[in-house]
């Protein structure tokens, strides 16, 4: 029996196990919505902006590990997805975005709501397609899911012209797919693995550098085993937070621009840096020429282009982090007679010293609410409920990274690579769709929150108990901090005191909301927020000019930290 393109679309998504589509309808995609209307398997989540729809799919994907799927219309619907695509591309998140397109005979004619979205999205997708023939639709969808979810994951876009949606073809969904130019390397080269094992075993001051790739590949258990077995201290990047329990004695927390003193010092004095699924981003390395000056570098990554891109690597090892570590771990059995605790003692003692020299700290003696205090309190109150925390971008994001103790992977959703303000709130909503019974907290700044606040409607419409905390300082705080420290306190265009009353705003959408201004209110308000069964927004008026420390100024080397 022949099916229409719209029906093939739905049947294909069912084959892929898709539960939700996030998006907004429009003229060029109305046939798909008509087909969606006539079935119950796939739920369409109507957002209020296409950018937010992509972030929701992204949050869903990061939290669950399953691909997130978006459906939007042509023209502006499609162009609004660009920021979401670029965000997902930078952080290697598997999402598939379907965009409506004008009928194929009109493509190129500047038709109403026509945009060359395939051209525009080429540099912020892992791959993209324009489907011109309904007979190729099912195979194209199969390819899109395959490309998005394998190798180094990433966003894939399918442009879907209106005439292809109504044209008919036999539906046959391919069981497997082979793309001849696409063969990611999963297993490590055995010879190279042996070299790396030897290097690790003979290092005096080894250090594990764990990035987002470790979370994507699910390598956290293997990393834990490696670290514990050989007593190697571990730091993570922002994207790697949760890949190693931050309450473990070997954890150094996050490194980099706002990393801990001990992690940054450890980098500067280690003799072997073992990078797993990280890409030596400038926010981690600081001044490249001064980075880890005494260290040989091991780099395990599934993407060969990440290796030796920024920093020359001594032991490149291409492969999936989890598989490579599984292949590597048994090889350490040959050193079973070594007492690693004893061998590591001087190095771990040095690290302990750094740990005690400069702990993450803030002034606790004020009446004002310190944002770090809010995060610490929230971490305490939610310790047993294993929540998902989604952040926006800016100072609050760094405070979360520093002061919320993460113990498991896929619990922190944050835009690391692109640094997209407006990401966190919709991403948290998306995660809530993935985990009905898991608490989701969105920690936002007042600037970021305003970039996608319209999604308050979405959480009310679907009654999602997303709890939002706005750390409100009336500034674009991170930029203001730079202006204070490096631009002579000239606060150019960072004062955003003119803002909505967030409590009234939330209430106008039908949310429960509250505002606090004093430190003694924090605990009570957070308890209320945590206990409340429904969407809730807490507007926390914080110390206005609080800064994020430590801070490595952009382009400085890691041991040049501003500490207060």
């Amino acid at each position, binding site marked *: 029996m022949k099916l229409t393109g719209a029906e093939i679309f739905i049947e294909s998504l069912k084959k892929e196990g898709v539960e939700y589509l996030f998006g907004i309808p429009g003229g060029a995609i109305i046939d798909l919505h008509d087909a969606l209307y006539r079935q119950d398997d796939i739920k369409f989540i109507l957002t209020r902006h296409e950018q937010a729809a992509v972030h929701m799919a992204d949050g869903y994907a990061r939290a669950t590990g399953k691909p997130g799927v978006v459906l939007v219309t042509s023209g502006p619907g499609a162009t609004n997805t660009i920021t979401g695509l670029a965000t997902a591309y930078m952080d290697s998140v598997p999402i598939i975005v379907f965009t409506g397109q004008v009928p194929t005979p009109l493509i190129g004619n500047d038709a109403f709501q026509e945009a060359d979205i395939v051209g525009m999205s*080429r540099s912020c997708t892992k791959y993209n397609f324009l489907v011109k023939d309904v007979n190729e639709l099912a195979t194209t969808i199969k390819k899109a899911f395959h*490309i998005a979810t394998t190798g180094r994951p990433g966003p894939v876009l399918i442009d879907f012209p209106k005439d292809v949606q109504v044209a008919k073809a036999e539906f046959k969904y391919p069981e497997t797919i082979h*793309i*001849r*130019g696409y063969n990611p390397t999963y297993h490590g080269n055995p010879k190279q693995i042996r070299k790396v094992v030897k290097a690790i075993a003979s290092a005096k001051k080894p250090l594990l550098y764990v990035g987002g790739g470790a979370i994507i590949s699910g390598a956290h258990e293997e990393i834990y085993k490696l670290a514990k077995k050989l007593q190697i201290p571990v730091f993570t990047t922002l994207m790697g937070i949760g890949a190693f329990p931050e309450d473990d004695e070997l954890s150094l927390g996050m490194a980099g621009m706002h990393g801990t003193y001990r992690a940054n010092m450890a980098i500067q004095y280690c003799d072997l840096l073992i990078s797993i699924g990280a890409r030596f981003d400038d926010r981690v390395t600081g001044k490249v020429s001064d980075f880890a000056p005494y260290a040989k570098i091991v780099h395990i990554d599934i993407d060969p*282009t990440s290796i030796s891109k920024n920093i020359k690597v001594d032991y490149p090892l291409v492969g999936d982090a989890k598989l490579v570590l599984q292949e590597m771990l048994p090889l350490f059995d040959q050193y079973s007679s070594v007492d690693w605790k004893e061998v590591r003692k001087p190095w771990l003692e040095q690290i302990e010293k750094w740990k005690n020299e400069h702990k993450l700290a803030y002034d606790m003696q004020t009446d004002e609410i310190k944002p770090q205090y809010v995060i610490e309190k929230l971490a305490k109150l939610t310790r047993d409920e294993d929540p998902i925390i989604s952040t926006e971008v800016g100072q609050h994001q760094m405070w979360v990274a520093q002061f919320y103790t993460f113990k498991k992977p896929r619990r922190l959703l944050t835009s690391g690579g692109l640094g997209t303000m407006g990401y966190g709130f919709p991403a948290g909503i998306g995660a809530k769709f993935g985990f009905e019974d898991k608490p989701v907290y969105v920690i936002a700044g007042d600037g970021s929150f305003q970039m996608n606040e319209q999604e308050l409607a979405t959480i009310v419409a679907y009654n999602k108990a997303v709890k939002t905390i706005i750390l409100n300082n009336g500034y674009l705080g991170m930029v203001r901090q730079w202006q204070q420290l490096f631009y002579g306190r000239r606060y150019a265009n960072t004062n955003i005191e003119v803002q909505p009353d967030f409590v009234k705003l939330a209430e106008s959408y039908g949310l429960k909301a509250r505002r606090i201004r004093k430190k003694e209110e924090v605990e009570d308000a957070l308890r209320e927020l945590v206990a409340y069964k429904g969407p809730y927004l807490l507007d926390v008026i914080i110390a206005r000019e609080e800064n994020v420390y430590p801070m490595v100024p952009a382009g400085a080397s890691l041991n040049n930290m501003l500490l207060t």
Partner: protein
Amino acid sequence: MKRIYSIIVENQAGVLSRIANLFSARGYNIESLSVAPINEEGLSRMTIVTEGNEQVLEQIGKQLNKLIDVIKVIQFGEEPFVEREMALIKMHTDMNTRAEVLRIVDIFRGKVVDVSHDSYTIEVTGDSDKIDAILSLLEPLGIKELARTGKVAMIREKKR
């Protein structure tokens, strides 16, 4: 340092744009680029000449390999290879220069492929040095128009 990449790609819409975009987005320079289908159905060969330090060239090779539409990347360097380029050169000619132009064309084993009262169009093939050499000789005689194909290249078969 200059390098020639020969890239076998899927012959489909958008491939050229993906490759060009890779170079422009990462700030790499394309000195020349040629593309045409090869004997295997559905595939094309692109020959790109680019310049950069060792690290940049290594990245370019990896980035090209990463593209899903790219089947194979051959970097010309160590192994002996043949490279050729073709140029069409339209010359202003008059009674004084016609003979000299023909002599030069003859020395370079070029061909005159079109003639008018005051012009010759010359076809010449060879490695890029040879093309540069004939151009430098013809230049003073009055080049009207020039079209070069850009390099194409292949690894030499091993001789027994």
